[in-house]
């Protein structure tokens, strides 16, 4: 595939958007450390992916590996030590290959790696690439990139269901004065939620395609995330919410596949009866 054609693919849209975020956030933060971390994450992800694919004789998806590395480097603080960045990328890529259904990952690789890294490394995720430490109006960049990507991957129902439920539940928490709803609705947490919903929740292999299932997926992910936030606070709520949503998507694929198998069996049996 040539470059202009690739740029029009969903992966092309995502790569260009998050690479632009990396560039803008680096200028805003006046540092090159984030770019260095992104290179570390991409190299670690590439090496892990290449070794695994060579050992298991599988086909490697280079662009999704780059996307995973970029997302990891935008979420982890740019002051995060290199071994934590590399470790997170390695765990993300391994999850992509180890937890699969019909050759597709069950969990969003970047979210899985970032969630595990919180427990293993305590890396201090800052979501700096979502402009969490920069002026509030920079959220405009997130919305522009986010809407372009969501439109391209056809996931608006999912994103709207997620954000609608997420904000509604935070409004309820705010009215009841439970948990840190005020924090979650303000930078840097609102930046994190928007980046997450536009670029991680919408990952095509780990989320449903049908509109009806997209809506359920969005609602389930938001409810699970807000429950975790209300009880524990911290920074794991977005990722845990997505993991629950990913499990719903997996279950949906599994049940659809089993129903199709049953239909196939029934038609074979009826054909045998007719011919016999």
């Amino acid at each position, binding site marked *: 595939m040539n470059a202009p054609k690739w740029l029009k693919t969903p992966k092309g849209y995502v790569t260009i958007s998050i690479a632009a975020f990396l560039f803008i956030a680096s200028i805003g933060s006046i540092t090159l450390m984030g770019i260095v971390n992104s290179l570390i994450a991409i190299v670690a992800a590439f090496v892990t992916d290449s070794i695994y694919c060579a050992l298991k004789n599988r086909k490697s998806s280079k662009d999704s590996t780059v996307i995973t590395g970029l997302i990891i480097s935008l979420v982890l603080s740019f002051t995060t030590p290199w071994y934590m960045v590399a470790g997170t990328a390695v765990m993300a890529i391994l999850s992509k290959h180890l937890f699969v259904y019909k050759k597709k990952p069950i969990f969003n690789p970047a979210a899985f790696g970032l969630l595990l890294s919180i427990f293993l490394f305590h890396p201090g995720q800052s979501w700096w690439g979502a402009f969490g430490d920069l002026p509030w109006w920079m959220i405009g960049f997130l919305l522009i990139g986010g809407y372009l990507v969501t439109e391209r991957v056809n996931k608006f129902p999912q994103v709207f269901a997620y954000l609608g439920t997420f*904000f509604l539940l935070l409004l309820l928490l705010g009215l009841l004065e439970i948990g840190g709803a005020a*924090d979650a609705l303000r930078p840097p947490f609102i930046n994190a939620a928007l980046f997450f919903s536009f670029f991680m929740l919408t990952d095509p292999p780990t989320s449903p395609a049908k509109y009806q299932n997209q809506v359920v997926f969005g609602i389930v992910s938001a409810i699970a995330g807000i429950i975790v936030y209300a009880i524990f606070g911290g920074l794991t709520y977005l990722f845990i919410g997505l993991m629950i949503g990913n499990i719903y998507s997996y279950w949906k694929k599994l049940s659809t596949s089993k129903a199709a198998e049953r239909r196939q069996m029934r038609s074979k049996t009826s054909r045998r009866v007719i011919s016999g």
Partner: protein
Amino acid sequence: MKKMDKKWVLLCSTAIAAVYAAGYYTTETQAADGQPKPYMANFVQSNSPTSTHTDVTSRQTQSRYKDGTYTGMGMNRRGSIEVQVTIKNDQITDVEISDFAMHYSERDVVGLPEEVLQNQSPQVQNVSGATYSTEAFQDAVQEALNQAQNA
């Protein structure tokens, strides 16, 4: 699959923005409660890390700290840390984290009070991957020392 109509995208976006705005204004008071008090804001602005260190050291030689236990708070966009610093004969004799409300793990900064005691200064080494908690802790200790100077 057919894509969502642009009118629906606009309508849903507006509805979500309205719910967000309602949540934002509902939590305005809670957010204001978590903001630094004016004197703390001034304090953070007027003291760079190096000048703070020099300031504290010079004041120690002039015996400016009053004995007692002082509470200080440090906060940033990721939460807040409250500490209690005990001063005796111009020496920091005890530092305790009395309230940890960061969005990170408390385990990240558990060794910092000991470091303050060793250095006799709020300046501690940045903990890998816990920059925001380290900064909030330093600000909290500095604020407590500031109170000890003004007591």
